[in-house]
């Protein structure tokens, strides 16, 4: 019992310790070799800038998060619905799946200027970019999950002459839920990538905009603060989805 508790504490503290270790070494090396600020600032300088500009960072991160979240919602709602349609119609799957793959293989960076042209400089072009990049994992995972039904379970449903809706609602959908959640988790980071790429191409607010502007002005400290802010919204977004997943899917043994 006691050893287990000690283990728990070690597990909890070890990433914190390694974080400080890495940051410490970074700080030391930058100072020891007098690396110029515009190449690699010290962690302490970044921390000072981060806390000084927390208000503006929060605003821009909020904008990026909102774009990513809307894109995430649209992509996953459409992705899940399309997957459901695919599973129930082979013809539909065969005729549309190649386009989904084509969409996946086209880099979002290549399409971003077009999206700006179509949806303007505002939020919608970023939402579209976030949605486009998240759509494919959503559809692929959901299709996989919906098809991952045990044959004997299907036989069981058929033997009591269950209709398609029963099979979907009581068997296919719950079976697919763990897959859908892994798509949602992948989408969280992808949607943020999409939103930032959209902001790079044309925006006047958002984390991508801040990164771009600070690179023009060679304000590397500011850039680092923005990168950290982008990472943080990604982590929080992922964490919230994982939290909801753990609440809903209690029956699988997922590793921590």
């Amino acid at each position, binding site marked *: 019992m006691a050893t287990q508790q000690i283990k728990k504490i070690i597990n909890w503290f070890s990433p914190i310790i390694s974080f400080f270790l890495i940051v410490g070494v970074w700080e030391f090396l930058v100072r020891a070799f007098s690396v110029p600020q515009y190449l690699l600032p010290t962690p302490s300088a970044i921390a000072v800038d981060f806390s000084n500009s927390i208000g503006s960072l929060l605003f821009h991160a909020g904008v990026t998060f909102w774009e990513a979240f809307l894109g995430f919602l649209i992509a996953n709602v459409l992705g899940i619905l399309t997957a459901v349609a695919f599973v129930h119609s082979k013809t539909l799957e065969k005729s549309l799946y190649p386009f989904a793959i084509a969409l996946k293989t086209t880099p979002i960076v290549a399409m971003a200027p077009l999206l700006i042209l179509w949806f303007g400089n505002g939020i919608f072009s970023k939402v579209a970019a976030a949605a486009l990049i998240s759509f494919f994992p959503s559809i692929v995972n959901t299709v996989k999950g919906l098809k991952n039904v*045990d044959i*004997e379970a299907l*036989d069981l449903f058929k033997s009591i002459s269950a209709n398609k809706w029963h099979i979907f609602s009581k068997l296919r959908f719950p079976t697919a839920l763990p897959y859908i959640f892994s798509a949602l988790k992948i989408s969280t980071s992808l949607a943020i990538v999409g939103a930032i790429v959209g902001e790079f191409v044309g925006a006047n607010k958002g984390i991508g905009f801040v990164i771009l502007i600070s690179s023009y002005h060679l304000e590397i400290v500011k850039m680092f603060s923005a990168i950290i802010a982008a990472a943080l919204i990604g982590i929080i977004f992922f964490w919230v989805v994982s939290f909801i997943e753990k609440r809903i899917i*209690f029956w699988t043994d997922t590793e921590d």
Partner: protein
Amino acid sequence: MSFIDVQNIKHSFNSLNVLNDISLRIKEGEFVSVIGPSGCGKTTLLKILGGLLPPSHGNITIKDSSLDIAIKRRDFGFVFQNPVLLPWRTVLQNIELPLEIIGDQTPFAESEKLLELLGLKGFGKYYPKALSGGMKQRVAIARALVFNPDILLMDEPFGALDELTRERLNLELLKIWEQTHKTIIFITHSISEAVFLSNRVIVLSERPAKIDEIKEIDLPFPRTIAVKQSKEYFQYITWLRNKLKKS
């Protein structure tokens, strides 16, 4: 009139002949086991009997009506090799799944009685992952019984269980059969299990399977463990074993 009438069933998957002209009559309330070499098509036969697989050729009537009508009537309760419990449902919710699909609001006491009948009392709120293999298969049997079908189709239900659990579940299945008067078609690999449980044992040949032998098991009911020490019991087993070797 026979309860289940199987006429000249043939079945093939693509060009592979699996069942070759199977005809069979089963009386109401009978316990019939099907044994045969592995891969001979026992499961295929059971799926065809239960309407899960349309046969390539032949005809089946259940209580004088076609298979389609029998399925709509929910004549069949299936128990598979795996318990196939839905992990997001509790034991009780798993048992009541067929009722939700059929839309039959059988009073709650019915499922409680089933829990008791299958030795699952107090486990209703458990999730499947907390149960042992034997317990899971009990839940599967309860789920097959809950909507009160006339016929139980069981595909090696105890094949994955250890010997002692299997023996206990055999006894309990006999008890349930005596109480509910279901007609049971039971597929097994085990000759002794078939002899112990059945009124009749059907021996299938190698693929493409046909009926090699139908053996009446004339051991007294209710059967207890003591039956397993009787001379007749051993004679049946020896006889069937020789039959299976030859085929």
